[in-house]
């Protein structure tokens, strides 16, 4: 089957439900393996940082959470664009499903950033570039979820959310740049990047493995959620009847 035909089939609700259903167990298995490796290398096999000691291990959760919080928002915006341009309803369900996951990762990035900062900078919160950007990103997620929840009509809510996500994604680099600019302005030349001026190679492996683990986790959860939303959306279809009738 050609690539285009496969893609077309995937966008069809019935086939997406089935195909995604088959992927979920595999993705879960890959996710578990990645986390086991990541946790082993992060918590045990890698050495403590010569400057920050064992607190560097928080980085293996904080940085992937921050990466994912941004990645998920971009996926959300991309799916929104696909929905607005090609009217593929499944794309909207991906956006809808992604938002709470992305928001939770943003929250995790903020909380672990705070926990990382306390032993190093002796304060629970610091207005550095990354944390401040993450905080604003959280507001962007909450705004998206709030807007979709506030509009009663499903289709209007979907389209309004899509516009908001696209407006948001254009603003994310602008916000990030302005906040970084603001942070360096007020902190002078101090290298405030929590992970130090450069990452040591022994720290790179756990970081990348955890990053991958977080990503696969997101993919798994978004598929589970999207399938649930799909059932609701396609409730009048015969294939949905079959699905809910079977135990």
């Amino acid at each position, binding site marked *: 089957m050609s690539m285009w035909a496969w893609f077309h089939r995937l966008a069809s609700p019935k086939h997406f439900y089935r195909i995604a259903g088959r992927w979920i167990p595999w993705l879960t298995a890959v996710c578990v393996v990645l986390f086991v490796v990541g*946790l082993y290398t992060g*918590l*045990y096999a890698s050495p*403590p940082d010569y400057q920050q*000691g*064992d*607190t560097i*291990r*928080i980085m293996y*959760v*904080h940085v992937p*959470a921050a990466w994912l919080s941004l990645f998920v928002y971009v996926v959300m915006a991309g799916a929104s664009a696909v929905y607005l341009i090609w009217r593929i309803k499944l794309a909207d369900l991906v956006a809808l499903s992604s938002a*709470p*996951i992305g928001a*939770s*990762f943003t*929250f*995790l990035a903020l*909380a*672990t950033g705070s*926990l*990382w900062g*306390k*032993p190093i900078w002796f304060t629970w919160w610091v207005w550095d570039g990354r944390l401040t950007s993450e905080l604003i990103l959280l507001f962007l997620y909450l705004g998206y979820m709030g807007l979709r929840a506030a509009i009663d009509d499903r289709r209007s809510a979907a389209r309004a959310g899509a516009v908001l996500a696209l407006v948001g994604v254009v603003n994310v680099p602008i916000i990030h740049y302005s906040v970084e600019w603001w942070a360096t302005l007020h902190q002078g030349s101090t290298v405030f990047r929590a992970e130090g001026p450069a990452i040591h190679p022994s720290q790179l492996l756990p970081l990348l493995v955890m990053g991958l683990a977080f990503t696969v*986790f997101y993919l798994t*959860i978004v598929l*589970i*959620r999207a*399938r*649930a*939303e799909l*059932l*609701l959306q396609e*409730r009048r279809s015969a294939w*949905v*009847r079959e699905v*809910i009738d079977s135990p």
Partner: protein
Amino acid sequence: MTWSQFWSMGGYAPYVWASYGLALVVFAGNVLAALQRGRTSRRALRRRVRQEEAA
């Protein structure tokens, strides 16, 4: 790394373990919420089918 070193995390145990604990909570929360969404959808749909058949 010894077992006691592992748990004490160079004295930073509360911060490191709180971070990983929080990550665990977030992951568990995501999984439970996603599965719950599926359950709620199915339940709502079954109820709807029953209502339609009763009518």
